């Protein structure tokens, strides 16, 4: 009962409150409180995650499993950055309290944490994100083949959008007038039309379907029909 029934009842109660609060204003304070309680739980989960990270990687290092050196680096980075932030290493004191180093902001420019963020974290995440440019190119070369009519339409649209979103679009159709019916065939205007009409229409259709699917799954959870979030079984 503790493992399944009570969590299910809690989920049902919280979900129903959140939905009804949208229509019945007197329930808004309860809705706000429920949201705050979830925020607290989410914050506590960080500690659980940190503990699991330490456990998994320490085990990998102690067992000397393949790739254990990467685990060493992960552990060193985790403990190192945690220590830099928690103990405010390298933090400049505030002007009001020059003798109290711990009163300074650990994220202020010049602090240890700031250096880690600016010169390690930011470049690393930007690097991984920028890999997308290369992967898009290789995916385009491999996957965009005119195998049927729909694929040909997709390719044509892709060409219009790719060129229309750059100065090339303006250059290629600059011979068309800027006003009148023919102006609609300028690549930059055609791009805007495609984004505002067929793309928006297609996205709205997918979003409506997804919204209904989301509502249906949520309803199943609220009614206790779907209990997969409790961990399998009935």
């Amino acid at each position, binding site marked *: 009962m503790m493992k399944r029934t009570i969590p299910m009842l809690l989920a049902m109660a919280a979900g129903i409150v959140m939905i009804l609060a949208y229509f019945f204003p007197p329930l808004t304070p309860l809705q706000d409180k429920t949201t705050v309680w979830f925020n607290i739980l989410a914050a506590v989960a960080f500690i659980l995650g940190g503990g699991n990270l330490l456990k998994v990687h320490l085990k990998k290092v102690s067992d000397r499993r393949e790739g254990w050196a990467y685990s060493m680096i992960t552990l060193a980075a985790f403990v190192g950055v945690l220590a830099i932030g928690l103990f405010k290493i390298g933090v400049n004191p505030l002007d009001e309290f020059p003798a109290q180093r711990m009163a300074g902001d650990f994220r202020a420019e010049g602090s240890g944490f700031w250096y880690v*963020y600016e010169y390690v*974290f930011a470049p690393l995440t*930007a690097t991984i*994100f920028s890999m997308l440019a*290369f992967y898009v190119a290789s995916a*385009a070369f491999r996957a965009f083949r005119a195998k049927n009519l729909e694929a040909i339409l997709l390719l044509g649209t892709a060409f219009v959008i790719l060129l229309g*979103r750059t100065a090339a679009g303006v250059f290629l159709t600059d011979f068309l007038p800027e006003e009148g019916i023919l102006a609609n065939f300028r690549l930059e205007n055609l791009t805007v039309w495609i984004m505002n009409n067929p793309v*928006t229409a297609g996205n709205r259709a997918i979003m409506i379907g997804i919204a209904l699917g989301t509502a249906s799954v949520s309803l199943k959870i609220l009614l206790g029909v779907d209990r997969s979030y409790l961990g399998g079984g009935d």
Partner: protein
Amino acid sequence: MYEFLRDLDRRVIFSLMALAVAVPILLQITPPEKATPIVRDAFETIEALEEGDRVYMAFDFDPASAGELQPMATAFVRHACEKKLKIYFTALWPVGPQFIKNAERDVISRDFPEMVYGENYVDLGFKTGNEGVIKLVANDLRTQYPQDARGTPIDDIPMMAGVASIRDFDVIMNVSAGYPGTKEWVQYAVASAPNDIKLVAGCTGVQAPLLYPYYPQQMSGLLAAIKGAAEYESLVLGKYGRENEPGMYQEGLRRMAPQLSGHILMVGLIFVGNLVYFMARKRGEA
């Protein structure tokens, strides 16, 4: 030739893309930009504000998307400063506060030193809770932010006087890289008071198709990807540009050249890929 193209190593494609992006940056090519209506509407929404009007500026992005979103964030802050608006910075992403500090340091302190913290701009900082934060500030901002990012109680900040919820702001300016972001601002803030709240947003290219349906009803304007940033920059520079304009106000415009060459390369790759496909079909291999 056919065998070479058919078995083309991915690394060749990666190298071509690296060249396509690097060469225009090194040659410092900046093509001209013309604003589209959706960006122009975003600009006009801010232009229509009066001195002293309140803007709620939410920086919901991280370093990974800063390449695409930092130029529009900088343009938003500069425009708000030029219009002498009251700026309330917040962030729903844990790394958002760093970009707020960058904006304070690089734009406000440097080019608008007359602006006073607490009177012209304030940093309310990051709050965990994703869309829960938006739902709360839609009704009661002061409970959610009892103090600013520097630890000053909110009642002691002059520009927080008379501010109870998001409805007390004239415009929300949001720069969003994903979740939580513009979609959540539309769903939980704008939807709660559609006649009271205006939203102007900047987003990554991938998100843009999802946000177009919200324009112009729920959103007054949208800057989609680096192109939108470049267009907005061209409008801001056109109206408020000075001599020897700092480079950071033209970052979006500068990035259009590598985008141009990258897109042309992709069109070429798609063309070559289809050539290989049809040649294979002719040989009976496809």
